[in-house]
């Protein structure tokens, strides 16, 4: 038994990546479908036929949950709101207006999507636990409203005159086929989202919303899109659920268990993976339904207990779901003999610093890139940045130094829009960017890195970097080309297909730099890019940064390590207690007694004066 070793792809574009990922799924997809169809054809028992229909129904709801919560990390406890509204939309259209479910299901999807928009708009202001718990309130509030409206138990009327026109088939297997069709539609939507700009942007939000904004991603818009798509699917499948069960009650469609089902399917199978919910539903629904049918009368509640034990067992041994666990195991087996990832390329910064052309500071009359005047920001009584003014010329490397707590990172946060300044002026290439949101500032050409690097461990280096490139182009393929270029600029082109989870600190810093470069910024704000690196790595980083500057990108860098900064920067701005203490070329600034005092205290400044 010899497994073909996969040749590393030379160029991965997004279209290729998508084709590859769909191709990789083709075999299990076809196998799953064939087995399922065989089951559908064989099973004659009505109860089991219903079960075969419910598996894709709950899988679809799980997929819908996963599109919002699995990808973006914003956990929704309220998907029953969309599901229930869909179910009631179809039911009311059918019962009161005689409209067929064939129209009712799309209408249910539309109502779901609208509800997603209305709910998402205010709720996305909340983060973390607050978001999750607020989502819980919507379906429960709706539950009581529908009870109050007198819709406790609504049955769909039988239409024996035209059963097919009203989705009432005597052969239950047709329902299963429709459910499968809806599941595949949802699955394809999810797969398309997964590796596209849409999915990558959601992943970036999950990883670090602020960093995503700084990379030019309009996080609010993407989240809104995600909840609309997700709610559309949930609404449509909710409508179909009403058709299958023929009776709708507020408890069954708006109840907390319905919301819980959505997230259990996804979390059990594999969170953040399009197939996860399908796996979850295929395992859990038959398990609990069979237990209920076989033992339900003797041991009431046994299916709940077993379901509980099953999901606890899974979570303890595969915290991200079955699918990821299996994938990791397969990957480990595949790479074990060849040593695969263990030896990352030692390629970053191929040229030593010595090979670089000598650095020429830009002429004094070079265009002013960034003009900051009188910038101030207070947090309560703490004046973090006060009346800071400085200018950055095109092609320059400006170092911002200062003791801990001097307001350096706050200054960056003000410059790239993460925090709104209180007063002052900020002009970028002559245009005011004061008070703009981070993604808009990034769009104008200011890139940014952060002190703490948080990559996606399960994505490749290239996929991590491409997130930064979306801002510069409309097509995903171009974004991948830009990402590769950016990787080449930092000397990581050979590492493009490594998983980010196995990178060294230096590689992570380079990855972060490449992500910021991928959007083709005119100005780069680098926050402690050298922190935590050994002296060899510092040399390599310096070389990379000087090359970036030589290519025409202006750099503003915050750094603590003086000896490195002296060799890198053309000019220093020294911050202390939120104000500019000194400004000028490195030699002058490092001799300034005020600067020495700020860094080392009075004793040393006296020493330096002497």
């Amino acid at each position, binding site marked *: 038994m010899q497994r073909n070793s996969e040749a590393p792809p030379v160029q991965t574009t997004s279209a290729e990546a998508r084709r590859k990922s769909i191709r990789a799924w083709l075999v299990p997809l076809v196998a799953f479908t064939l087995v399922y169809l065989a089951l559908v054809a064989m099973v004659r028992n009505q109860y089991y036929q219903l079960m075969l229909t419910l598996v894709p129904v709950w899988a679809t709801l799980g997929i819908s949950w996963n599109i919002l919560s699995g990808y973006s990390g914003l*956990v929704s406890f309220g998907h029953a709101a969309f599901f229930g509204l869909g179910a009631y939309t179809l039911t009311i259209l059918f019962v009161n207006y005689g409209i067929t479910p064939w129209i009712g299901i799309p209408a249910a999807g539309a109502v779901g999507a609208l509800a997603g928009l209305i709910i998402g708009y205010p709720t996305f202001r909340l983060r973390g636990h607050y978001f999750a*718990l607020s989502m819980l309130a919507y379906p429960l509030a709706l539950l009581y409203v529908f009870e109050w409206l007198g819709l406790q138990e609504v049955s769909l009327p039988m239409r024996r005159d035209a059963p097919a026109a009203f989705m009432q088939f005597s052969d239950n297997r047709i329902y299963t086929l429709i459910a499968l069709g809806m599941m595949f539609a949802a699955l394809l939507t999810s797969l398309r989202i997964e590796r596209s700009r849409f999915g990558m942007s959601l992943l970036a939000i999950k990883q670090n919303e602020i960093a995503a904004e700084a990379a030019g991603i309009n996080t609010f818009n993407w989240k809104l899109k995600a909840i609309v798509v997700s709610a559309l699917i949930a609404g449509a499948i909710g409508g179909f659920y009403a058709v299958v069960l023929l009776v709708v009650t507020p408890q069954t469609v708006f109840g907390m268990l319905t919301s819980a089902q959505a997230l259990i399917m996804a979390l059990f199978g594999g969170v953040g993976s399009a197939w996860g919910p399908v796996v979850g539903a295929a395992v859990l629904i038959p398990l609990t339904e069979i237990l209920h049918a076989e033992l339900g009368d003797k041991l*009431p*509640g046994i299916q*709940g207990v077993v*379901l509980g034990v*099953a999901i606890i067992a899974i979570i303890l041994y595969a915290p991200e779901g079955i699918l990821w666990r299996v994938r990791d195991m397969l990957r480990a087996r595949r790479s074990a003999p060849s040593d695969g990832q263990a030896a990352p390329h030692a390629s970053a910064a191929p040229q030593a610093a010595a090979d670089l052309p000598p650095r020429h500071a830009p002429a004094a009359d070079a265009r002013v890139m960034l003009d900051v005047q009188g910038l101030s920001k207070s947090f309560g009584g703490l004046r973090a940045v006060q009346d800071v003014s400085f200018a950055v010329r095109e092609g320059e490397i400006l170092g911002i130094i200062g003791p801990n707590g001097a307001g350096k990172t706050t200054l960056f946060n003000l410059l790239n829009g993460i925090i709104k300044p209180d007063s002052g002026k900020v002009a970028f290439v002559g245009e005011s960017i004061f008070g703009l949101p981070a993604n808009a500032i990034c769009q104008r050409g200011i890139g940014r890195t952060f002190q703490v690097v948080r990559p996606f461990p399960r994505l490749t280096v290239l996929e991590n970097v491409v997130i930064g490139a979306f801002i510069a182009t409309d097509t995903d393929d171009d974004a991948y080309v830009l990402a590769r270029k950016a990787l080449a600029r930092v000397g990581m082109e050979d590492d493009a297909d490594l998983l980010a989870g196995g990178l060294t600190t230096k590689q992570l810093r380079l990855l972060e730099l490449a992500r910021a470069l991928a959007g083709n910024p005119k100005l780069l704000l680098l926050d402690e890019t050298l922190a935590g690196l050994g002296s060899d790595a510092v040399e390599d980083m310096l070389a990379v940064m000087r090359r970036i500057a030589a290519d025409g990108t202006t750099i503003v860098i915050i750094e603590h390590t003086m000896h490195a900064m002296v060799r890198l920067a053309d000019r220093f701005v020294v911050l202390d207690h939120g104000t500019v203490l000194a400004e000028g070329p490195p030699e002058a600034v490092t001799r300034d007694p005020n600067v020495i005092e700020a860094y080392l205290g009075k004793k040393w400044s006296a020493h330096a004066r002497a």
Partner: protein
Amino acid sequence: MSEFLINVENILQALSAGLLLGGIYGLMCVGLGIIFGVMRVINFGQGDLMMVGMYCAFYLFGSLGLSSVLGAEVGAIVAALLAGPIMYVFGLLLHRFLISRVTGVRVASLEGEGHYAQLILTLGMALILANGGLLLFGSTPVSIRSSLSSSAWEVGPLVGDYVSIFVNKARGIALIVSLAVAAGLFLFITRSRLGKSLRAAADNPEAAIYMGIDVDKAHRMAFGIGTAITAVAGGLVATYYPFQPYVGLEFVIVMYAGVVLGGLGSIIGAFWGGMIIGLVQQLATLVLPTQLQNTAVFVVFLLVVFLRPQGLFGVNVTRA
């Protein structure tokens, strides 16, 4: 009686019902608030832990003979209070063998990633408790009945000769006990060394470690105490409210609403949050149909979360 006096009576009656209910909700919320505040875990099983506490009190009262030894009235209260220590041990064991596997300082630093495991684990725990309860206790509603459940104190007449409030004795005593337990807990949290270490662990687990606080132990204790407090609240509810194994679901939402209203991490805030929920629920019946009283709760909850996300008593801390 004039129209006006009838209205006054209705309002007073709703207000007193709200206070009675709110006091109990407050205690439940304090139980959850300790767990949520210290561990930052969304525990879906809190309502079901309360249910176990209710059955605990029920069997202490009946089968284990507290009612025959102490009499029904005193026995009911003692049973509710005794459910606390028993559920404390239950909570410790749950944390030791289950909850600690997915929580703690290690997970707290994982940002979003670790929460999935917690959600699923506590959901699984909730499912097992509720359905296991169905297996063990059956689905027939039970309650701890004494003469208190069906008699009332008359407060008044307050206005004129006729307007007075009737307070169900079981509910009234439940409120007093609940206030006493909440006050005792508050003193423990603010005054005792152990309580202070709990608060430190809640505020900043990492810094607490550097200060020599055993954060894992603090978490275990928080989970035990939170379970116990909620169980006592459940035992008190059981003295006037028939319940069955699925009762937890009815209350867990109220608890979360109360805790978020009060402000994450604030124990006293959780109590007032629960109190507000109780008041809103009862006062809403004055203007809204009874079925919508819970909708009113959720609307108030959403409004507070939107207008003041840190809650009424919370401190706004954002770390960029």
